[in-house]
C-alpha cells in the first residue's frame, strides 16, 4: 500500500489507546490433584496481596526465541541487587548471545522507555542454538552450542562489547557409521572456576580448564542415552541426569569411567531434563522430568527420590534453588508456566528450635533438631509440612525455556520471544 498513511510518524507513547503491554501478574496459587504424589503437601492457599508485584515485572519482546537467561554473578560481599543478565537464543537462522542491563544506569532512556525495562548492552552472533549458558566469572560466559562447540565469551565492560575468548570446537561429536565425525549438541554446561564441565547428546562428559586448549578429562560413552543437564555436587564430583530417568554421580578423582552412584526414578523411564542441588545442604538434589514432575532426592540414602511432586503439564526445563534463600525453589516448563515453591511459610508452625532446645536440650538428639530445621524439602509428613506454590504466569501460552534467580530478582525467557524481569520477588 502506498500513499495515504496518516502522518509521518507515530505519536509519543503516552497516546497509545490501551497501555496494556506489561503482562498482568497475580500471585495466584495453583495446585493440581496430586494422585501420584508421594508426599502430599498441604494446600497452598495464598493470602498475599495480588497486586504487590504487578508493576515490578517488565516484559520485553526481543524478536528471537530465548533458550537461556542468566544473571551475572555478584562480586563477593555485594549488597546491591544484580543489574546485568545474559540471554541466548535458539532456532533462529542467526542466533545471538546478548547482554542486558536492568540497572538504573541509563534510566528512562532516550526513547522514553519506562524505567526497569531491560536495555540491550551488546550482542554477538553464536553458531547454532544456545543449549546452555553459565557465567564463569564477572566477565566471562561459557556457552554450549547445538553444534557441539563450547565457547567462552568475554564481556568487555568498558566499551560494552562481546568477543569470543576461547573455543573448544566439537567438544561433543558423533562418530557415525562411515567413521566421519559430526558435532553432537552440547546440552549442558556448568562452571566452577577454573573448571568447566560439559555434557551432550553423545553421552560424553568433558572436563575443561578455562585456560587449557584440550580437555583435562573426557569420559567417552559415559551414558548410553542423552545427558540432559549437569551440575557440581562438590568440587570433584558432578551430577548428571539423562533421558532414561537416571541421576548419576561422577567422581573425577576416580580413574575408571563409571559413575560412582546411580539413582533412578521408579517405574517408568521418564527422562530428566534439569538438576540443581541445594546450595547449603548438598545432599538435597532437585530434578525435573519430561512429565513435569519435580523430584527431590536425598543422595545420602536410597536410590529413588524422597518425594515426587506433581507439577507442570509438560517438560520441566529448569529447576533452581534460590541461591541464598533455599527454602524457595523455581521451576519452569514447556507448558508456559513458572512456579515458585515456597517451604518457608511453615516456619512459624514448626516447633521452635530455640524454644525446645532451651527447655530440654539433652532430650532431643542433635540430628532430630537439625532435621526439623533444615529438611523442609525432605519431610514426608503431609500434616506438618506446608508448601506454598505460586504460578507466576497466569495466562501461559508458549514454553518458558529458562529462568534464573539471584537476590530479589528473577529473569525468564520464553518461546514467545519475550524476556521478563521481576525485581521484587519477595515483595
Amino acid at each position: 500500500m502506498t500513499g495515504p498513511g496518516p502522518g509521518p510518524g507515530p505519536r509519543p507513547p503516552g497516546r497509545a489507546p490501551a497501555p496494556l503491554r506489561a503482562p498482568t501478574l497475580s500471585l495466584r496459587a495453583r495446585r493440581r490433584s496430586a494422585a501420584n504424589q508421594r508426599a502430599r503437601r498441604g494446600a497452598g492457599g495464598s493470602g498475599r496481596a495480588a497486586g504487590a508485584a504487578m508493576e515490578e515485572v517488565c516484559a520485553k519482546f526481543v524478536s528471537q526465541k530465548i533458550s537461556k537467561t542468566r544473571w551475572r554473578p555478584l562480586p563477593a560481599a555485594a549488597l546491591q541487587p544484580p543489574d546485568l543478565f545474559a540471554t541466548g537464543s535458539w532456532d533462529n537462522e542467526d542466533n545471538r548471545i546478548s547482554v542486558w542491563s536492568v540497572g538504573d544506569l541509563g534510566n528512562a532512556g532516550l526513547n522514553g522507555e519506562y524505567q526497569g525495562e531491560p536495555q540491550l548492552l551488546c550482542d554477538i552472533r553464536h553458531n547454532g542454538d544456545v543449549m546452555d549458558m553459565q557465567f564463569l566469572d564477572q566477565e566471562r560466559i561459557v556457552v554450549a552450542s547445538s553444534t557441539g562447540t563450547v565457547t567462552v565469551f568475554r564481556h568487555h565492560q568498558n566499551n560494552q562489547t562481546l568477543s569470543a575468548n576461547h573455543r573448544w570446537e566439537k567438544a561433543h561429536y558423533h562418530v557415525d557409521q562411515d567413521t566421519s565425525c559430526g558435532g553432537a549438541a552440547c546440552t549442558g554446561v556448568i562452571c566452577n572456576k577454573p573448571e568447566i564441565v560439559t555434557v551432550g547428546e553423545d553421552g560424553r562428559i568433558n572436563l575443561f580448564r578455562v585456560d587449557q586448549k584440550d580437555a583435562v578429562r573426557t569420559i567417552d560413552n559415559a551414558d548410553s542415552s542423552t545427558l540432559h543437564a549437569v551440575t557440581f555436587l562438590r568440587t570433584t564430583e558432578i551430577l548428571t541426569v539423562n533421558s532414561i530417568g537416571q541421576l548419576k554421580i561422577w567422581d573425577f578423582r576416580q580413574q575408571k569411567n563409571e559413575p560412582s552412584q546411580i539413582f533412578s526414578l521408579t517405574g517408568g523411564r521418564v527422562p530428566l531434563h534439569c538438576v540443581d542441588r541445594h546450595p547449603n545442604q548438598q545432599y538435597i538434589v532437585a530434578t525435573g522430568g519430561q512429565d513435569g514432575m519435580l523430584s527431590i532426592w536425598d543422595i545420602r540414602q536410597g536410590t529413588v527420590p524422597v518425594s515426587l511432586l506433581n507439577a507442570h503439564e509438560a517438560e520441566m526445563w529448569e529447576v533452581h534453588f534460590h541461591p541464598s534463600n533455599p527454602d524457595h525453589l523455581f521451576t519452569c516448563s514447556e507448558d508456559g508456566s513458572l512456579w515458585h515453591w515456597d517451604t518457608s511459610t511453615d516456619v512459624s508452625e514448626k516447633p521452635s528450635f530455640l524454644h525446645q532446645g532451651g527447655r530440654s536440650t539433652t532430650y532431643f538428639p542433635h540430628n532430630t533438631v537439625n532435621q526439623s530445621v533444615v529438611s523442609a524439602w525432605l519431610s514426608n509428613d503431609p500434616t506438618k509440612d506446608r508448601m506454598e506454590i505460586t504460578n507466576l504466569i497466569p495466562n501461559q501460552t508458549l514454553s518458558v525455556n529458562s529462568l534464573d534467580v539471584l537476590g530479589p530478582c528473577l529473569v525468564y525467557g520464553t518461546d514467545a520471544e519475550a524476556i521478563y524481569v521481576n525485581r521484587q520477588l519477595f515483595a
Partner: protein
Amino acid sequence: MEEVDGEPPLTVVPGADPSARQLCFAWGPAEVLVCETLFGRRGGEDGGQSSSCVFVVRKDQDIYIQTLRKLFNESHGIFVGLQRSEEELAGKSRKAQLVQVSKNYRSVIRACMEDMHQAAISTRDPALQSQYSTQVSILSAIELIWNLCEILFVEAAAAGPLLLRLLDWVRLHVCDVDNMVREVLSSENPSKHELFWNVVDVFVLQGRMDEARHLLSKEASANPTSVNMYRILDDLMKKMPMPSLGNTQTLTEMELKWQHWHEECQRYLQDGTFASNSHMESICKILLGDEDAILEKKELMTTWYHFLVTRLLYSRPTVKPMELRFYAQSSMDLFLGGESSPEPLDTILMAAFEFEMHQVIKECSIALSNWWFVAHLTDLLDHCKLLQSHNLYFGSNMREFLLLEYASGLFSHHSLWQLGVDYFDHCPEYGRVYLELHIERIPLNTEQKALKVLRICEQRQMHEQVRSICKIMAMKALRNNRLGSALSWSIRAKDAAFATLISDRFLKDYCERGCFSDLDLIDNLGPSMLLSDRLTFLGKYREFHRLYGEKRFSEAARLLLMLMTAHIAPCSFWMTLLTDALPLLEQKEVIFSAEQTYELMRCLEDLTARKSDKQKLQGDDVETTKVEMLRLALARNLARVIVKEGTLEGS
C-alpha cells in the same frame, strides 16, 4: 469461479531471465519454487555452463521482518486469549470484552510502530531507513483501518456516541498538524505567531473546543478593541451542544438544542458581528457547517475522512450508522474534487463506512503484503458474530481460510512455526490436517527441538506424527552409533519393529565383542521391555548374565532354559544360548536337573535337525565341534544328575 479482482501483480525474480530461458515452478505451502528449464533452448550453445538456479519466491514476506516478530508474538497471546474467552458473557459485557481485545490488538500495532520508528531513526543505512519508514506507514494505515472497524463493527456505536468516536479516531490519526500546533504553543507569544489562526482552525476542525477557546482568549487579551467579538465567539463555542456518551439526553433533546444553537450562530453571521475579522468569520461559517468554508481548510485536514467527520460534527452530529455511507461518498468526492483518484486506503475506508465488511477484508487482502491483519481482524469480527452467513466456494469459511493462510506463513518461517500451532488449533475444519502436514516438515536438528515438536503432537493425539518423529530421531541416533538413544526413541514411539531392529544390533554387538554395551540402559528397561519380543529377549538375556555374574547359577539356568522353551529367543541365537549353558554344565555342583537336561538336549536336537534340513552341515568345523562338546557336556551332566537325584531320593 468469481472474476479476478484487478490484474495480479507482477513479481520480478531477481537473477532469473525469462526472456532467455523458460521458467517452471512448483507450489509450496507458503512459497513457490521457480527454476530455469532447458525447454526450448537451442542445442546447448552455452554448454550448460551458466547456472541453473532454484529460486524460492515467498508470498508472505513480512514474516521475515525482524521488528514485526514482536507483532506476531504479542498478538498470538491476544488471539489465544480471545479463543479461550468465555462466550457465555451476554450482551454488554461481552461487547466490552471484545472491544478490549480489539484495543489490545491496536496497542500492539502501535508499540510495534514505535519500535519501527525508532529503528528508522537510529539506522544510518538509507535503504533500511526507507524500508522501515514504509513499514511505519503500512502499520499506521493498518491501525487506522482497525480503529474504524472497531468503532463501526465491534463496538457498533449508535447515533450520537458514533460521532464522538469518529472524532477521537480523527484526532488520533491525523497528526500531520501536531508539529505545527506544538511549534505555535511553545513560541513565546502564540497569538503573534504567523500560524496562530491555522492552529485555532485545526482545533475547531477537530472539535477541540476548549483548546481553541483557550488560544482565542490569549488573542482577545491582546486586542482590547475587539474584545466583544471574541466574547461572542467564545460563548458560541462554549454553548455548542455535544452528544453525550451516557443516557443523560435523548437524541431528540440533543437535536433540539443543536437547532437552537445553530440558529444563534446563523444570526450572528448574518448581522455581520464578525465581518471585521475574516478569521473569525470563517470560524463562524465552519460552526454553521458551511461546506465551502470547511473545504477552504483542506490543507489543515489533509484527508477526506477528516473532512467527513468535521462536516458531520457541524451539520449532522446525530448521524446514524446507516447514513454514513452517503456522507462518506460525497465527502470523498468533494474533497478529492476529481483531481486525484482514490487510493487503496480510501477504497478500504469507504467500504467500511458502507458497512461492507467483506469488501474491507477483500481489499485489505489485496493491498497488504501480509496475512496478519486480515486474519486477526476477521477472527475478531467472527467472534462478534458478524460473519456467519458468508461462505466461500472453497475451504470452509473466510475466518478459517485466512487463519490457515497466516499460520502456513508462520510455519514456513524457521523460527515462528511454534506460533502457527495455536492458529491451526482454532480452525475446526482443516486446521488439524494442515498441522499434520506442516509439523512433519519441521527440521529437527537437536533432541530438544524434537521434544518440543513431539509434545505438540502428543497433546493433540497425532499418533502418526509421533511415530514418524521418533523414527527420524531413532534413525539419526542409529546412524551415529548411539544405540541407547535409538532404543529410547523407539520405545517412546512404541515402535516394535524398530525396537526389534535395535535389539538385534545389541545382540550382534554382543556376539562380536562378547560383552554388552550400554548396560545402564538395558538394565533399566523396566516394563518397556515388553514392547517387542526381541527387546524382551535382550532384557532377559542380560538378566541371565547378571544372575550368572552374581553366581546365582540355578536361577540363571532356569532363565536360560526358559528363553528357549518359551520361544522368546530367536532361533538364530539358540546356539549362543546353548554355548552359554556350557559353563553351567561344567560347574562342580549339579545345576540342571534331569528334566532340564532333557529339555536342553531336545533344544540342541531341534536346532541341529533344523540346520540339517536347510543345509547339510558341511565343513563347518567350529559348529560341529560345538555340537559335539555340548552333547558331551549334556551327557555328563545327565549322568551326574541321575546319580545325585537317585541318591537324594534314595536316602
